[in-house]
């Protein structure tokens, strides 16, 4: 059996993460290329929205990731707070910038989709506003952590903010049901059959999987930077080939 606790130490996690990154990036690139091919060459023109609907192949995956990353970030923050484990708190910090980037992309691609279809770049409705609040939560988390000099205290303060903010995730997800909004309902849900052609769904899921793999790779790359920054006094860091040379 694998001893998972072994990998909760930065010393053993650092080389493992390093080995995984290039594989994850390669796989994400291949899946994204196939996904884009399916989305732009195989998926048919939409009956209502013409070719403009093809933004969906970016908009839905980045929006899913913006919410999913926040939940994972809050999870690691909670583990770090409960067990006082260094690596969990570092994982939470490593996820935040990627989450903020996907949230920005969700708003950006949404605006570019909203303009031709709704006639406006932005409306203050429930779905769009709660997604904007998500961006502020990510930025608040990063600003709070960088404002505190002592890393362990920064971890704790950030964790509390991340956990309080998690309440926004169900609000984003259910906003299209709870309120009257311009935004359409969920394209894919677990309770009913998807409301789109299978080939469109395939393209979207491929892109979502690519975005997920990309996120894991980016978070691992960033957590390795954080480990180096925080543990550069440690003996094992001095022994690394990339430091010794």
């Amino acid at each position, binding site marked *: 059996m694998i001893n998972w606790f072994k990998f909760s130490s930065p010393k053993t996690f650092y080389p493992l993460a390093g080995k995984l990154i290039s594989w994850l990036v390669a796989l994400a690139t291949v899946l994204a290329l196939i996904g884009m091919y399916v989305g732009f060459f195989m998926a048919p023109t939409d009956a209502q929205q013409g070719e*403009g609907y093809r933004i969906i192949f970016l908009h839905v995956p980045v929006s899913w990731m913006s919410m999913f990353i926040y939940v994972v970030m809050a999870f690691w923050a909670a583990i770090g707070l409960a067990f006082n484990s260094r690596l969990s708190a570092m994982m939470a910090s490593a996820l935040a910038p990627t989450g903020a980037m996907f949230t920005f*992309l969700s708003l950006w*691609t949404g605006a570019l*989709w909203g303009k031709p279809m709704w006639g406006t770049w932005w409306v203050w409705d429930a779905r769009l506003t709660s997604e904007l609040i998500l961006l502020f939560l990510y930025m608040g988390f990063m600003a709070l952590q960088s404002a505190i000099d002592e890393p362990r205290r920064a971890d704790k303060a950030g964790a509390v903010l991340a956990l309080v903010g998690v309440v926004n995730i169900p609000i984003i997800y259910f906003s299209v049901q709870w309120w009257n909004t311009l935004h359409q309902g969920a394209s894919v849900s677990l309770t009913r059959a998807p409301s789109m052609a299978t080939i469109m769904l395939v393209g979207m899921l491929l892109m979502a999987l690519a975005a997920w793999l990309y996120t894991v790779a980016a978070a691992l790359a960033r957590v390795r930077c954080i480990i180096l920054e925080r543990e550069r006094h440690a003996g094992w860091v001095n022994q690394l080939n990339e430091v010794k040379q």
Partner: protein
Amino acid sequence: MNWTNPGDFFAMGGYGLYVWGSVLVTAVALCAEWLLLRKRRNAALLHAKRELILKKEYSNETTT
């Protein structure tokens, strides 16, 4: 196949600005993140290397 020529493909049925605006900004954001990560890693490695040099110098001074 949806497109008969490259012009069609780039026009996206009149939605070219919106579709390619989304694709371009997404690609730029992803590339920018990797560049920033690389910069951060190089800076962190440089700090760790300097620390190691200082450690070695210190141990040389104390032993000689």
